[in-house]
Every structure is written in C-alpha cells, then in structure tokens.
C-alpha cells in the first residue's frame, strides 16, 4: 500500500519533570516542563517539512520521539507506517537522523572508519556499504580527506559527514534537527542546497527539518509548522502563511532609547496593526517591526512619534513580510537566533 504520509503524529504529549539533588538523594521536583502538548502533525511522502520555533519550543523532543529515543507520555506517532512505540526497530531502520552540533561522530576515527562502523550498525551489506561510502564521500566533497581523523575537520565538514552517516542506509525519511546550527554562512548555504536539491528533489526523501532560522524554513520547505511552548500554532506553505498576516509590507526600524511608553504611543496609531520588538539589544539599539497599512503614506507620522519621544533612528527599511512576522503575529513572541 502506498503511504500518503511518511510521518504522522497524533496527540503527542511529553512533560519533563525536573530533578533535584544528587544520587542517591535525587528526587523528582514538582516543577514540570510541558515539552509537547497534544501535537498533531502529518508530513506527506516526499515533502520537505519545516518545524519552526524558538529554542525550547519542543522541536527536538518531537524529533527524538519520532526517532524512538524518547517515549511520549501520551499519543503516538507513525513513521513510514510503523508505530514508534510498537515497532521501534522498523522505525529506526527507515529513518536517518542528523542533530545539531558536531559530537555525533567519533573524532578519533577517520571519516571512512566512522561510516564503516555505522554501516554495520545499520546492517548495510558489506559490498553495498563500500560503494555507498565511496559515493557519499565524493558527494560531500570529503573524499580527499576521507582517511583523516574527524578531529581535524572543520564544523561544516563534520556536519556533512553527519549527513552522510544519516543517509548511508538510504532511509526513506530524514529527521534533521537544526542541521545548520553554528555553521558559517557558506557551509550553511551549501548544506541547505544539498538537502533541498539532492536529498529532497533528486532522491525524493521525505524530510522533517527543525530550525529556528526563518530564512532556512522559507527557502527550503514545502510546508512549515510553527511550534511554540509545545503546541503547533499553524501549518501551511510559507507563501500561504505569509499571506495570513494580510499585508504586503513591514516597516523595520532600528532605534535607541526605546521604552514601553513609546511603544504604547506607536501601537495607538490607527494604521498600526501590530508591533514586534526583538529581544536582542546591541549598544542600546532595538529592532522594531511595525505591521501597518499603507507604509508609504504613514511613514512620516511613525518617524515623528519616535523622534518626539527622544528615540534616535539608526536605520529604516520597508520589507516584505517574513515567516518571523507571521510567527510574531500568531504568538506575540520573536524567534531568537
């Protein structure tokens, strides 16, 4: 039977209970963290699906449940038609997982030795493994340094090797948890292109990608789900999500001396629909995103309010709405990173 969906999550719930004290006096605290709160999600076969949310939103917990590393408190999930609770072995055989960071490889082994080892763990027949390892090293541009210890690799090379390891057994589904986190822009770009063009379009793999980089999700994904505080708040294509906020432009300003009084005045302007303020402040400067009607006609008035209130304006630009704008509008929170 042809499956329409490669990943289906139904009412998944996971609550972590904090622990206090050291062994043997460790005890569970009454403090809990709801990582996933009745999450429903479906990823179509062959789709590149993005899970977008801030740190601590529940993205990694969801990936770990789908990869059978965490058992949910309630609900269930199917990966390639296999239940993560009842058939974890079949799920593991049909997925490839790449996590953020570089520690998922053995640094004191060479790239080739790492791949040879994981080929055995993934039960790839020896002949097939030799061919695949050679192909993947070449595909990743690592063949010249295949016999060097991984500890001598850069972060980007290690991430490429981690991707090679994840697709060694040619899985149908890939779970990529923040695969470009901490990489420099050129490596990030090449990894994004590889995931989208080679793995998704050419090889037809179903990919669930978690990220808190809005551009990454916007550029790469067929559909995106926003997750915040363990709940899915919206699912659709990036274009449809951006259309949800109902305006074509956003006024982005970097200002200083911003306080709540000024923001209240700005929000009170009749043409302002919403206002997002970034968490990060550098040298007293704050980025403000104003969601407003008819930017051209109203820009002077906005500038006037900031100036009168003693705010210095460092930059001002009119932009197209991004996924972050949608996220801000839906949750009232700003994506970090």
């Amino acid at each position, binding site marked *: 039977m042809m499956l329409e969906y490669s990943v289906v999550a139904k009412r998944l719930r*996971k609550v*972590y209970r904090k622990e206090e004290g*050291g*062994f*043997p006096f*460790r005890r569970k605290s009454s403090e809990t963290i709801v*990582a996933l709160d009745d999450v429903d999600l479906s990823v179509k076969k062959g789709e590149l699906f993005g899970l977008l949310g801030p740190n601590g939103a529940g993205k990694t*917990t969801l990936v*770990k449940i789908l*990869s*059978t*590393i*965490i*058992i949910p408190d309630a609900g269930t999930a199917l990966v390639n038609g296999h239940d993560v609770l009842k058939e974890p*072995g*079949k799920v*593991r*055989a049909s*997925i490839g*997982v790449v*996590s953020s*960071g570089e*520690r*998922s*490889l*053995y640094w*004191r*082994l060479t790239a080739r*030795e790492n791949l*040879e*080892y*994981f080929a*055995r*763990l*993934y*039960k790839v027949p020896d002949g097939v493994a030799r061919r695949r390892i050679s192909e993947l090293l070449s595909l990743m541009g690592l063949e010249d340094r295949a016999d060097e*210890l991984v500890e001598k690799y850069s972060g980007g090379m290690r991430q490429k090797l981690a991707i090679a*390891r994840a697709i060694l057994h040619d899985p149908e589904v890939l779970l990529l948890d923040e695969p470009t986190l901490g990489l420099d822009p050129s490596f990030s770009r090449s990894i994004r292109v590889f995931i989208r063009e080679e793995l998704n379009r050419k090889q037809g793999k179903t990919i669930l990608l978690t990220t808190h980089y809005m551009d990454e999700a916007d550029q790469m994904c067929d559909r995106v789900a926003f997750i915040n505080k363990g709940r899915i708040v919206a699912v659709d294509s990036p274009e449809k999500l951006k259309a949800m906020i109902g305006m074509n432009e956003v006024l982005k300003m970097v200002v200083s001396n911003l306080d709540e009084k000024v923001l209240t005045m700005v929000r009170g302007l009749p043409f302002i629909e919403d206002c997002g303020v970034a968490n990060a402040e550098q040298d007293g400067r704050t980025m403000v995103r104003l969601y407003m009607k008819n930017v051209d006609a109203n820009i002077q008035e906005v500038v006037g309010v900031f100036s009168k209130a003693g705010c210095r304006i460092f930059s001002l630009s009119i932009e197209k709405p991004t996924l972050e704008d949608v996220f801000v509008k839906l949750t009232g929170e700003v994506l970090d990173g």
Partner: protein
Amino acid sequence: MKLDAASMVLELKAAVSTARKEILINLRYPLWVVFWAIMPIFWLAPFVFQGHALVGGRFSESFRELAGSSDYVTFTIIGSSLYAYVMSALWGTGLSLRREQWGGTLETILIAPCSRFSILFGKALSDSVLTSFYAAVQFTLASLLFGARIRVENLFFAVSAVLLMILALYGIGLILSGLILMYREPGALLNFVDTLIYTVCPVNYPLRTLMLFFGGVGYYVAMVSIVFPLTPALEAVRAFLLPSFNPYLNVAIALSYLAAVTLVFLTLGMLLFSVVEKKVRRRGAVEAY
C-alpha cells in the same frame, strides 16, 4: 525482534564492528596502551617485595599451609592478572555507555536498528581483547622480573576458566552499565564494587586466610567472596597452573558454579538493562549528563 540466521550474522557483525571501533580508538591513545600494559607491574611489585621482607625469600612455609603451594609470587601474579578483567568489566563495560553519553554519540548509536546488546557485546569483546593483551604482557613481564612458575600443559584449561569468568564479569558490567545510565553518577558505585571485589576475593591471599583471620565468621565472608565470579575462577586457574596448589573450592564445583553464575549475571544484566533503557527513554534522559 525477529532473529533468523541472516539477522544474527548482521547483529554479530555489528558487535565485531563495535569492538573494532573501540580498539581503534584505544590505539589512537598509544601512551595509555603502554600505561595499561606496564603499570600493573608497579602495582604488583610492592606485594612481592613485602612478601620477600616478611618471609625472607620467594617461598613461604606458612603460605604452603594455607594454599598448598609455597610460591606466593606466582600465586600473586595469577591473582593480579585475573583481577585486570574485573577492572575492565567495571570501568570498561560498566562505563561504556556513559562514555558514549559524554562523547555525544549515545543517541546516534541507539537510533541504529541493531540490537543494543550487539553494541554492548562488542564493547565487552573489545575490553576482553585489550585486557587479555594487557594481562599477557603483565604475566610475561612479571614472570621475567619475579620468576613465575606455572604448569604450561594446563594453560588451555586455565584459559577456558578465564573465558567463563569473562562472560560472568560482563554480566556484572551489564548490570552496572544499566545502573549508571539510570543514575548517571558512576564514580562512587564503581569504586565501591571494585574495592569490595578486591578486598573479599583472593587476589593476593589464599581463600583460607579468611577462616584464619575471621574464625567462624570467615566462612560467611568466603561465601560473600564466592558470589563474585573472580573467586571460583581464581581457585580453578590456580589449581590448573600453580604446582601443588590446594584450592579451598573443589575445581569441578568451582567451574560448575562459575557456569551457573555466568548465566545468572548475564540474564540479570540483560533484563535490568532492558528495563533501565526503557525507563531512561521514558524520562527523556538518554543524552542527559
């Protein structure tokens, strides 16, 4: 999990590959390889020196009364060589998954579709190979330095007894591995078990010493000692290798008992590990420090 012949071969390959990986990583730290091959001689030497000081030579008549053989030097060399396997099972297999956790690779190997026991068996296999190498170097060096005298014709039987002991010890390693994955603080637990085994097992003294020292209670202390596979193994190996050694335990009984505890520890280790692994996944703490 379905286990036909083909999938068993693949599981075995995963185990052997895990052992190969562990050995390769160990060999990439050559100074540690030299350390573990040579240092145990320095730990053994003070016992030999102390023995010489106490009895005025390498043979002791009072030792003969307790052990049947007066050659306490060979007795101690055998003891310390076998004790190396205890350290390997505790600090190697017991800590193996915790090391993967520290390195950040535990989740990656647990996501693989092969059995967890194949990975653990592979780790135990590499520990056995490396420890056998270290024990062989240690025995050879100690023999050259202090003059060990063994019945070489019985080496095969002695090695068979050691193999049985290794399996039982790795059952204990499996139990500890599960407990450490669960409680994440291995230092105190491993040191306690290690010290307990070293104290109550006859590594450096004949088992009858316990009776001599503790009187009537000595029998019960000996019973505690026998719980650990090292004791029956030491009794059997010394009976095979040490001329005129008089074991406290009958060799046939010691070996049968060793086979039985091997089964018990391995079964217990596998059961406990399965329960703990599920519990850790439920707690969401596989990669937790």
